[in-house]
């Protein structure tokens, strides 16, 4: 798993996932990814609670696109791409990969 290069973001996301994830939003692409990878929303949520933010891009509009890596309780390593809107307390799951299966970039 990658080192925590973005400590503030990592801390924010972990705490957010542990304590105040009032709604879980995911795109149809994320839904397809989860089915393909055989990963459940439970696993994704667990990965977010222990995740490391490895990349962050500011969007042209509000919010930012983060790439994070985390593990499920079954030690399955996942890579997730998220849209994060801190001011709305909103995280949208865009894509999900098992870490060993990711092929792009």
């Amino acid at each position: 798993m990658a080192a925590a290069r973005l400590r503030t973001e990592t801390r924010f996301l972990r705490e957010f996932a542990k304590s105040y994830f009032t709604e879980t939003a995911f795109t149809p692409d994320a839904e397809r990814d989860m089915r393909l990878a055989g990963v459940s929303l439970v696993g994704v949520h667990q990965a977010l609670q222990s995740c490391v933010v490895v990349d962050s891009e500011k969007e042209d509009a509000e919010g930012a696109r983060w790439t994070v890596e985390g593990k499920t309780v079954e030690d399955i390593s996942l890579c997730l791409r998220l849209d994060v809107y801190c001011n709305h307390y909103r995280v949208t799951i865009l894509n999900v990969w098992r870490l060993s299966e990711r092929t792009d970039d």
Partner: protein
Amino acid sequence: MTKCGNCGGGSIKKLLIPSYDADLLGAPFSVVLENSVWAEVCEKCESKVATIIPDLDDLVRSVAMCRAMMPRKLSGKEIKFLRTSVGCKAKEVAAKLDLAPEHLSRCENDVKPLGPLAERWFRLFIIVKATDRLRKKAIDFVAVKKHMSITTLVDMKIETTWDPNVSLVLRLVHRKTAPEPDLFDTETGEWEPEDQPKAA
């Protein structure tokens, strides 16, 4: 998110899904969420932008508690689902049940059945773990307690035979509760069975 990413221009509207099949939870039985899940849809191109499930963490724990209180014998997949839904590793649960981790693994893979006493302890473990988390989140879980009590569990006769054509379906609804005044000004809620858990 206010604009559609697919067509670039459409505004996003939220639609309440009357009945959502939550198969992505990974439960080996059917979980249907009634009037609780939202779809974000583009007003222009009408494509679905996102699905929104409220309070996923508590939903998963509520599903686990509901299944733990249903008398039908737990299958291996159900044992694994309940264990992971409360965030526990197999080693930890095996230790609590006085089982070897290998034995629990065999039970989870349906190679061996979990003994009746171990299963009862396992169900109790799941309920304690799940309610403990709900308490930590300061959620009023009166509604949950209404459906689940330790006495019910102790008196429960685990059903080892059932009609294979009758599958388990859990129907849950997310009821809004009052916002917490000293935290964020956002609505919270809790998951509870739409009705008594039943086979359908």
